[in-house]
């Protein structure tokens, strides 16, 4: 039996299975909105309540409630937008933007350190420095900015490459 006599069986064509599944835009918007509400309670609601409590006890507050609310709303809105746009090439640049805004927020807080307040009655005053803690916290946005840059490079070099790993089927 020669090899030529027996025709080789052709290999079956590769199965085309879905390699990733990106949630629909509506779904992503809903999840982002839900996350936004939770994050708002944690990162805006609670700090504002704490500041209001301190203020109600006659103590000066280190940052205005309006500033906390504004910075919080901007940061959380950008985070929500980043989540919604995660499957697109805008994800990397938005990650950089969110982290840059977070970094700017921390820097703004550093400029407000130390927190000085006088106890009611004037018998004691305290200046509490927290800039060292915030400077360490700045590691977080810096690291995330680098991550955002890497994602941007990847998206422009190989569009869609990360999608199977971000949204496995």
């Amino acid at each position, binding site marked *: 039996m020669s090899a030529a006599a027996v025709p080789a069986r052709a290999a079956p064509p590769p199965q085309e299975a879905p390699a990733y599944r990106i949630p629909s835009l509506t779904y992503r918007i809903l999840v982002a909105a839900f996350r936004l509400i939770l994050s708002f309670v944690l990162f805006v609601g609670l700090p504002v309540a704490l500041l209001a409590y301190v203020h109600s006890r006659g103590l000066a507050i280190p940052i205005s409630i309006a500033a906390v609310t504004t910075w919080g709303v901007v940061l959380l809105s950008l985070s929500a937008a980043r989540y919604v746009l995660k499957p697109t090439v805008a994800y990397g640049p938005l990650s950089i933007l969110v982290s840059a805004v977070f970094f700017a927020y921390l820097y703004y807080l550093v400029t407000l350190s130390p927190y000085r307040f006088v106890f009611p009655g004037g018998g*004691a005053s305290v*200046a509490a*420095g927290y800039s060292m*803690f915030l400077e360490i916290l700045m590691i977080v946005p810096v690291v995330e900015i680098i991550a955002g840059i890497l994602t941007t490079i990847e998206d422009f070099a190989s569009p869609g490459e990360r999608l199977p790993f971000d949204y496995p089927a």
Partner: protein
Amino acid sequence: MAGLVVPTHRQPPLIYRMARALRWTGIFVLVLLVVYAGTVAYSAYEAAHATIESRSLTGVLVANGMIEVSGSFTLSNPGIYPIGGLELFVYVANSSDVPLGTVTLGPDTVMGGSTGLFPITVKVPIAASSAAESLLFVDQYIHVKAWANVTYAYLFPLSVMIAESRSWGAPFEGFRATLGSPSYQNGTVTTPVTLTWTNHASFVEAGGISFEIQSSGLADCGGGSFSINVGPGQLYNQTTDVTLNTGCNPMGGELLTSFTFEGSTTSFPPEPIP
């Protein structure tokens, strides 16, 4: 929306893995710092309830004509983090804000769940018109200002300023040495000398007070002494007769007194004789 191709079990590209590792690192650091900040806030809240407490000041006369004002600061730290690098600077002034002295303490550390006791002692020389003079004779409120620099929970430097007034009981509150009307008998002149005051200090005044009557021309007209044992809160009011030296007229002069206590002598400011 679904994409095709590529089996997903293959390893992600290096750049993707690096970005993912950095994101996880960021989240890990963030969570770590948020938990740390939460425990610090709770611990600081606990510590703020205790903070720095002070005790009343007490005074005692010591050798070399000094008065010693002493007290202490108690710093409770019921939190879990240490209060480190504690440096305390205390400024003490009398009721007229005339400085009596300063004390510097530290650096020291008060560990979490413990209490630090920091004694403050100021020695002030007693001299006429000195800042300490009023401490002997006038009940008052002593002004104490304390500045403390600490580092809480390793990362949070704090500067605390406490200003308070502490009551002070003078050991010779209302001290008066007075000369009575002289009497003449057999060519000698005798005059009564009366000492009166209230001991508002916390110690027993056991010793002696000697006095000398001086004329306006600084001549010694005579003198005497009182043996005293005056407890806290007691009124002292005693009179003794003094025979004046011949030809010495005390009017317009001064009554000089000094207190001898535990081997040291403290001169009181002169009392003018009208």
